[in-house]
């Protein structure tokens, strides 16, 4: 299969996933359990308020018509107007993205910087005491709930030691270093469990590649074992690692809901959570769908990235 055919196939799957996601979100929010307007206002709402909201939500038209209105709005950048905030959803989302995206990237970079060197050392000294220690530590790392880790970090580094504030985020106006500092504890809490998973996968992948023929060839050419690992093993081990990285970025973006709540960070995750608590279904519907779009696009990019890292993939997978 050529690269183009591979790209087209992945693009078709992306389109199908996006369509599916939009239908599921729409169905969950607007179709399944009764009247969304009643849900948003509660059962004691006045009839005229209810009628006004119904008109605003466009509930007087059929579900397919509403779906079309919603989805065509999403495509043209009109995400609706939040019921509680009374501002366009797009504006809120952009404001919140300024927290969520840097946080996810920060955590991802932290996880990679911790995991890659550790995994390479462990693979190089496979079976050594250090390798076994890494395996044991990462077992705990995988098992630790990140929100518990977050609370312990706050306790230690802000309440006891006073190095960081316990939460909140004042925006990027006070400079990048102040912003980064506010995001450090949340990023560490997100990164540590991810680093544990990442280093295990990376170690395993490196050990697998070290058995391949091309490594023997590289050794025969005179490379040391570590050089072969670095120049040949690493690149090949990246394939399974990329899968995990893609999943982790999605997780960090969409799954930061809990961590953003621990630290009171005004990110997208906290926005979704607050919108649910306030029963602002317009906001929930659009933001959840946007997050799903982001996750699916990241997956798409990772799929494309594979094919560049390993040409065998675009040829073999029919």
């Amino acid at each position, binding site marked *: 299969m050529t690269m183009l055919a591979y790209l087209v196939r992945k693009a078709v799957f992306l389109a199908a996933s996006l369509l*599916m996601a939009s239908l599921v979100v729409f169905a969950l929010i607007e179709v399944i359990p009764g009247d969304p307007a009643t849900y948003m206002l509660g059962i004691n709402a006045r009839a005229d308020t209810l009628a006004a909201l119904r008109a605003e939500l466009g509930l007087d038209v059929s579900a397919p018509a509403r779906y079309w209105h919603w989805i065509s709005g999403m495509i043209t950048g009109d995400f609706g107007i939040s019921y509680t905030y009374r501002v366009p959803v797009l504006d809120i989302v952009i404001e919140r993205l300024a927290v969520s995206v840097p946080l996810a990237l920060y955590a991802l970079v932290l996880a990679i910087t911790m995991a890659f060197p550790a995994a390479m050392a462990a693979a190089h000294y496979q079976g050594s005491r250090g390798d076994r220690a890494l395996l044991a530590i990462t*077992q705990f790392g995988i098992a630790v*709930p990140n929100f518990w880790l977050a609370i312990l970090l*706050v306790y230690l580094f802000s309440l006891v030691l006073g190095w960081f504030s316990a939460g909140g985020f004042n925006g990027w106006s006070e400079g990048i270093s102040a912003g980064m500092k506010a995001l450090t504890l949340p990023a560490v809490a997100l990164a540590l469990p991810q680093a544990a998973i990442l280093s295990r996968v990376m170690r395993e992948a490196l050990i*697998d590649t070290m058995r391949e023929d091309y490594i023997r060839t590289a050794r025969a050419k005179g490379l040391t074992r570590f050089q072969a690992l670095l120049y040949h093993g690493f690149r090949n081990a990246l394939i399974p690692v990329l899968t995990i990285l893609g999943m982790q970025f999605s997780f960090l973006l969409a799954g930061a809901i809990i961590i953003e709540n621990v630290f009171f960070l005004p990110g997208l995750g906290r926005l979704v959570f607050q919108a649910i608590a306030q029963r602002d279904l317009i906001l929930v519907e659009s933001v959840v769908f946007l997050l799903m779009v982001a*996750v699916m696009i990241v997956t798409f990019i990772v799929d494309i990235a594979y094919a560049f890292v390993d040409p065998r993939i675009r040829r073999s997978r029919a």
Partner: protein
Amino acid sequence: MRRRSSFAFRAGLAITLFMVIMAVAAHFWTPHDPADMDITIRLQPPSLIHPFGTDHFGRDVFSIIMAGSRITLGVALAAVMIGLGIGVPLGLVAGAFHGRIADDAVLRANDLIFAFPALLTAILIAARFGPGAYTVIIAIGLFNIPVFARISRAASLPLWHRDFIRAAFLAGKGKGLISVEHILPNIAHLLIVQASIQFSLAILAEAGLSYIGLGVQPPAPSWGRLLADSQTMVSISPYPVVMAGLAIMLTVLGFNLLADGLKKRYIRTREVII
């Protein structure tokens, strides 16, 4: 190497057995009533009467954790059962009709569910249908379906070419009967390993959903909720927070070690099972 892995396996088995026994015991007895509040003994450090101390309502932390294990393990068990109960038949059908429409449909549906961010969808479901144990079970269970479908399909495919399956065909058995009588027992070990992994993931997910208030509702005791309730008190008394988190971590660790140990015991090949 081998001795160490069996140590990890034994540790995993011991932890999971301990947790299961605790959950069953909590059904009949806890040292104190986990919902019993006594403000005069709030935030006490561990003592003989309250081995893990008390929280800011004066509830016995040990009793909450004991009673909470029942809910956490129960939710995880139900969620894994949904995955096994729906995913395995789908996977077996896909494997039996390899390359046909049924196979294709199962694969595509799997990919689509995998494309969804699990936690986000779970939160959406929990938010829309109201929080509670059943919502959490369905939200977590839904994402277990494609996991088990994929593994059953992948593991059953090579079996269909084996001689004992051909013999079964010659004996006049149909694909359905063969799937149940011959394929299923031969992939059971893989399913058990995967179930253990999904169990630990379900425990983490349940704890997370409870922590943000979408799990079981008070006064039902839960580990995630105990964490959430006590976190603002962490500087006065860290015991409730530390103990609740340790309970979650230990249980997850136990099931992961168990899965690793079983995998080493059953699976000789180095193939990674997704």
